[in-house]
C-alpha cells in the first residue's frame, strides 16, 4: 500500500520556520513501522531527512515523535495500527527543535538528573559480602517505574509542561518514584521535599496524556499520584 506521509521539516541553516513536506511511500502495513517509512524517505527520496533512532525495537528511547497527533516511538508503531493512509509526523511538542524531528533533550535530562536518580543508602553493605535482601513484594512495589527509557514521550505530551516549562514533568517524577518506593533507598524524604516544590508534582492535573504516551506501558499518572500522596502523608 502507498501511504501519504507528511513530515514537519525544519533546517535551521535554510528555513525560517518549520514547514510540512509530503512523501508517497510504499509499505507493507502489517510489517512496516513508522520508522521504516522514515528510513525509506531518507534512503530513497531525501537523504537530508533527520531523525534519531538506534535500537529500532522500543528499548533505547531515541525515536519518540508526534505521530498522527500522539507521542509514539516510531519503531514501535506499525502502519496498520494507525488505520489510515495519511500519516503526519512532527517533532515532540514543547521541546526546542534542532532539525526536522530532532529535539534538544538536554533540558529534559537536566530535570531527570535533578531528582537525584540514584540509590541513596548509607548503610553498610552486608558483612557477608553478598547482596542486600529485598522481598519479592518490596521489589514489586516499584517495578513499573523501573521500565522508563527516558524517551520524553510523556513529558512532552503534558499540557501542564507546555504551559509551564519549568514543571519538572512526568519522566522525572517516574524516576523519583522508582527510588522513593524502593525499600533499599534512604533518600525518600529528600526527594519528596524536592518534588513538593512549586514546579514539582502539584503541577500535574491528572490529564493522563503521559500514561497514554508511554511506550513502556508505565502507569505514569498513578505513579505521580502515589508520590503526591506520599508528600501529603508526611504533612500533619
Amino acid at each position, binding site marked *: 500500500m502507498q501511504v501519504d506521509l507528511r513530515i514537519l521539516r525544519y*533546517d*535551521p*541553516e*535554510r528555513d525560517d520556520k518549520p514547514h510540512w513536506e509530503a512523501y508517497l511511500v510504499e509499505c507493507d502495513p*502489517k*510489517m512496516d513501522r513508522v520508522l521504516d517509512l522514515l528510513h525509506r524517505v*531518507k*534512503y*530513497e527520496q*531525501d*537523504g*537530508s531527512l*533527520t*531523525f534519531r*533512532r*538506534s*535500537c*529500532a*525495537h*522500543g*528499548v*533505547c*528511547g*531515541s525515536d519518540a515523535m508526534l505521530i498522527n497527533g500522539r507521542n509514539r516511538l516510531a519503531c*514501535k508503531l*506499525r502502519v496498520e495500527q494507525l488505520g489510515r493512509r495519511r500519516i503526519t509526523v512532527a517533532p515532540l511538542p514543547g521541546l526546542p527543535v*534542532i*532539525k*526536522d524531528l*530532532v529535539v534538544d*533533550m*538536554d533540558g529534559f*535530562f537536566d530535570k531527570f*538528573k535533578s531528582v*537525584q*536518580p*540514584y*540509590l541513596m*543508602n548509607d548503610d553498610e*553493605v552486608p558483612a557477608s*559480602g*553478598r*547482596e*542486600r*535482601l*529485598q*522481598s*519479592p513484594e518490596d*521489589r514489586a512495589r*516499584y*517495578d513499573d517505574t*523501573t*521500565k522508563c*527509557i*527516558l524517551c520524553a514521550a510523556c513529558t512532552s505530551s503534558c499540557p501542564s509542561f507546555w504551559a509551564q516549562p519549568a514543571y519538572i514533568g512526568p519522566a522525572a517524577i517516574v524516576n523519583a518514584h522508582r*527510588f522513593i518506593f*524502593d525499600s*533499599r*533507598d534512604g533518600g525518600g524524604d529528600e526527594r519528596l521535599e524536592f518534588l513538593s516544590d512549586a514546579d514539582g508534582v502539584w503541577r500535574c492535573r491528572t490529564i493522563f496524556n503521559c500514561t497514554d504516551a508511554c511506550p513502556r*506501558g508505565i502507569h505514569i499518572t498513578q505513579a505521580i499520584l502515589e508520590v503526591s500522596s506520599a508528600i501529603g502523608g508526611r504533612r500533619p
Partner: protein
Amino acid sequence: MRIQHDALIVGAGGAGLWAAVELAKAGVDAAVLTKLYPTRSHTGAAQGGVCAALGNLEEDHWEWHMYDTIKGGDYLVDQDAAEILAREAIETVVELEHMGLPFNRTAEGKIDQRRFGGHTRNYGEGPVRRSCFAADRTGHMILQTLYQQAIKHGVKFYDEYHVVDLLSEGGDLGDGGRAAGVVAYRIADGSLHTIAAKAVMLATGGFGRMFRITSNAWSLTGDGVALAYRHGIPMQDMEFYQFHPTGIVGIGILLSEAARGEGGILLNGEGERFMERYAPTMKDLAPRDMVSRAIYQEVRAGRGIDGKDFVYLDVRHLGRKVIEEKLPDITDFVRVYQGIEPITEPIPIQPTAHYAMGGIPTDVLARVTRDAAGTVVPGLYAAGETACVSVHGANRLGTNSLVDLLVFGRRAGRQMIEDIKGVGMPSVADDVEEPARAEIEGLRGSTGQESVPRIREKLADVMMDNVGVFRDEAMLLAARTRVQELRARYTRVGVTDKGLVFNTDLLEARELGYLLDCAETTVASALARKESRGAHAREDYPERDDAQFLTHTLATRAVGGPRLTYKPVTITKFEPKPRVY
C-alpha cells in the same frame, strides 16, 4: 575546540560507564564521549540476565562457570581471562545490587537466578540456575543503574559526539606510540573537538550492522574497532561472529534465550523438538552456535515451518503467569512486531546476527595489545564487545556479554587510575584535527554518485549470505571480492545533506567506512581459518583442527588487504576436548 581530561572513555554502554564510575569515585577527572545519549546504548537491549555463580537456588561454583565459558568458546578462550570472568562475576553482580539494580528476588529476598544456554552444573551434567535477572530487561537495568551512578559521581559526558580519530604521541598506536586522546565531531553543530587524555578507553560496542538480519542497533558500526585498526592495532578473532538462534523472522529483533531458560522449546515443521537430536543433554539450552546451525540444517532438510526458512519457538506450555511476569518485554515484542499471541501461538524465529566475539585485543587488565607477544599500547584500553580479551573464544555463552562488560569495564577503570599516576598530559600538535577535517569536508563536499544506503545494503547482503552461519571457500572468496568492490565504490560516495547541524547523512557515510573495515577483516580471517570451531562453521572443513588452529587470529591493516598473524591461546586448567552437549 581543545579540551583535556585525565581519562577519556569513548562509548557509554555498560563497560564505558562502569570504568567511568570507578575513575570518578577515585577522584580522577573522567569524561565519557558517546554518539548517542548514554541511556540509548545497546547494553540496554540485553534481556535475559547476567551469570554469576551465586548459588542462590542450587549448588554452583565459579569453576563450573569458567569451564562452561571455555567449552562454550570451543577452547579458543584464554583461560586466565575466563577464570577472572567467572570469579569476578560474583562480586560485580553483588556490587550492582548494592548500587541499586532491581534484580528479581527469591522468596528469601536473594537475587533470583534462572537457566541459560550452555551454563551447566558440575562440568556439563545439566542446566544450572546461574543467570541473575531483572525480568527480561536485565541490560536496561544495568545501563540505567550505571548511568545513575555516573550522575551521582559527577562523570562529565559529551553526549552526541561521534569519534572520528584516535591520537597518539611517539608514533602511531600500532607502532610503539602512546594514546593521547581523540578527535570528535559534535553532531549538533558539526564542530570538531580535540580531546587530549592520559588514558583513552574504547568501549564502542559491536558491529552487527554489517549483516542484513541483526539484533543490533543502527548505531553498532564498529567505530572503535575500525579506528584502532586504522592506527595499526590488529583485530583479533574477527571470523567468530555469533548468530543468535531466536530472532524475529525478517527483522532480527532478539527474543531472549531466557524464553528457553524458563522452559521454552524449539519445534520444526513436523512439530518435533529437534534439539534433542543435536544436543541430547542440554537440548534447547545448547550453546547458540549449535542451535543456530541446527535451525539451518532443519530448514535445509525441508523441515522449516511449511518448508520455509524459519522454525518455531514455543512457550505456550509455560502459562500466562510465567510468560507475562518473567518474559514481559519479549512478549510485547512478539505482539507488536509479529501480531502473534505467544500464550496461545508458537513464535516464528530464525537466527539473527548478534555478537562479535572478536575485536580489539587486550590483556586481562583491559590494556590494548598490539602483537602476538601481547605488547601493551600505553594509555589505550578497551572493554566490552569492542574488545577481545578473549573470554568468549569461538562462541560466547548467553549472558557472558554482560559479565564481560561488567568485569572488564571495572578492571579498565581501575587500571586507568593506576596507570595515569605520574603521567603528564600528552602533547598534541596544533594540526591533529586536519586528517579528520579533510575526510569530513571531503565527504560533505563530495559530488560522488555512489549511495551510502545502497552500499550498506549490498554489504549487509553479502555478509549475511556468504559469511553467516555456514561458510566455505567459494562463498568467502566471493565475499572478499564483493567487499573490495564496495570499498572502491565507497570512495565515490556522495551525501545529500551539506549542512553542519545534525547531519546524520554525513554520519552514516562515516559509519559505513567503519563497517567496511570490520567486514574486510572478518572475511580475511574466515578465509584463512580452514577448520570449524564455535561460530565459525566451514562446510569444506567441518572438523575442529587443534593441531593447526588452536590459535587466535590477528588481522593487521596492510596495503592490499589485512595481513594475518597468529597468537597462542592461554590454557591453564582445561585441555581441549570434543565439544558435546
